């Protein structure tokens, strides 16, 4: 197949073939970062704007490094410093960016679908770096890449995602990708954060950690967002940690080769005990490495298909 999309907005829109194509492309880009010369001229002469209306550190740094390794020119824009604060609409802001002849906009926004709205109205490519609780496609892809690298494939693989599924764009991108590629997905956490409605999209819903991890090949833990603690979704951090935090003792319920994943940043000893995060089942830092490769692949494909 050949890549034909000018934007990457979410994994929900992609076919299994397209996802596999990105992962295959990323495998070659991963090798670039292992060389002494960690740079290729693929995006030479192209300009990428990183437009982060919602704060981000690791995703932005990962995108920036990916862009540099592709030889693109980069402009970083943050909401605090943009004209959004002066009353300009988001569309006017990005239209002004496009008028400067940029080739790609990497965008994060707190509103679901903001990137879809923008992508429909711009000629240049748009890459979603996270929109609300909707999708975070490059995080989903890097998780898929890491799973495929470690487990060889997805057919029949049991993947459990544990934590605040309700508010998580990482969970949604993972769910869409995993289901398309043939994995069995379990989502687990307190019933307030993991409502039964998720069963309708074809995943198993579980409110007990032991049940969720017992047969899992992969356990992906999501960050418990402190900022939601006061919203009444769960009684307190201590209670969450006691019921759903993964500790050394939790590992005894799992198969010996279960992968422990986390999109970061980790709240050590809340959703994940330090000794497990640093233990031999953990692939958390490899996820970071793979994120760079996946973002290089996505930037390359999206930039490359336009005329």
């Amino acid at each position, binding site marked *: 197949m050949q*890549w034909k999309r000018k934007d990457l907005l979410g994994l929900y829109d992609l076919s299994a073939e397209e996802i596999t*194509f990105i992962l295959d492309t990323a495998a070659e880009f991963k090798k670039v970062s292992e060389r002494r010369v960690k740079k*290729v001229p693929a995006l030479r002469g192209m300009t990428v704007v990183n437009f982060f209306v919602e704060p981000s550190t690791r995703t932005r740094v990962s995108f920036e490094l990916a862009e540099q390794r592709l030889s693109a020119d980069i402009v970083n824009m943050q909401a605090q410093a943009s004209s959004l604060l002066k009353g300009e609409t988001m569309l006017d802001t990005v239209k002004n960016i496009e008028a400067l002849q940029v080739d790609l906009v990497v965008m994060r926004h707190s509103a679901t679908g903001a990137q879809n709205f923008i992508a429909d109205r711009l000629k240049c490519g748009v890459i979603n770096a996270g929109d609300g609780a909707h999708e975070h496609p490059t995080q989903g892809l890097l998780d898929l890449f890491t799973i495929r690298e470690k487990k060889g494939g997805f057919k029949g693989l049991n993947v459990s995602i544990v934590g605040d599924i309700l508010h998580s764009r990482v969970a949604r991108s993972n769910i869409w990708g995993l289901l398309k590629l043939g994995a069995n997905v379990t989502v687990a956490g307190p019933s307030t954060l993991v409502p039964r409605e998720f069963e309708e999209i074809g995943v198993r819903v579980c409110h007990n950690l032991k049940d969720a991890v017992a047969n899992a090949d992969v356990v992906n833990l999501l960050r418990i967002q402190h900022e939601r603690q006061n919203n009444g979704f769960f009684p307190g951090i201590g209670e969450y940690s006691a019921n759903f935090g993964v500790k050394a003792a939790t590992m005894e319920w799992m198969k010996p080769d279960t992968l422990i994943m986390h999109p970061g940043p980790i709240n050590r000893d809340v959703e994940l005990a330090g000794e497990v995060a640093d233990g031999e089942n953990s692939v958390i830092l490899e996820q970071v490495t793979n994120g760079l490769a996946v973002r290089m692949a996505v930037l390359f494909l999206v930039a490359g298909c336009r005329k």
Partner: protein
Amino acid sequence: MTSSQLFDAEQMMSGIRDLARQIADHFTDSDRDIALVGIHQLGVPLARLLHEELGKLNLKTEFGMLDITMYRDDIGTRSMLPRIHETVISFDVNDKEIILVDDVLSTGRTIRAALDALTDYGRPGLIRLAVLVDRGEPEFPIRADFVGFKIALPAERKVLVNFEAVPGMSAGIFDVNWQK
């Protein structure tokens, strides 16, 4: 599309053996550190065949494969990109004598990209170019050192090399006219 066969499978194989002999005659000093690097897609099977033939001629070579898609000069100007294939350079490129291998030398742009790609892996001692077919009119000042066949055809026609027979087309070298 119409196509006519220029060389059949047997003639093609004898051209490949001739190419191997040219290389072996050139690199006579047996303790040289030589590698064949095939350029995707069709330079790779050709490099494999040459690697075998050179073995029969007692010239030991290492083998690698190179994808040049990340080094193309037309990214963003085409409607879509070709698939990236696997690059495998498992030897140390520094000071190595490298023979780049491709099926057809046409515009020279692929070779330009391959030189950039290869030198990002290290500093080879020497790079030479072997092609099965030289079309004779490159757009860049790039010439092949070892040539199997010289074929002069108008630019709009394509030379297609089929190392193995596929349904509907036998092995051999073909002149393809896309416009008919």
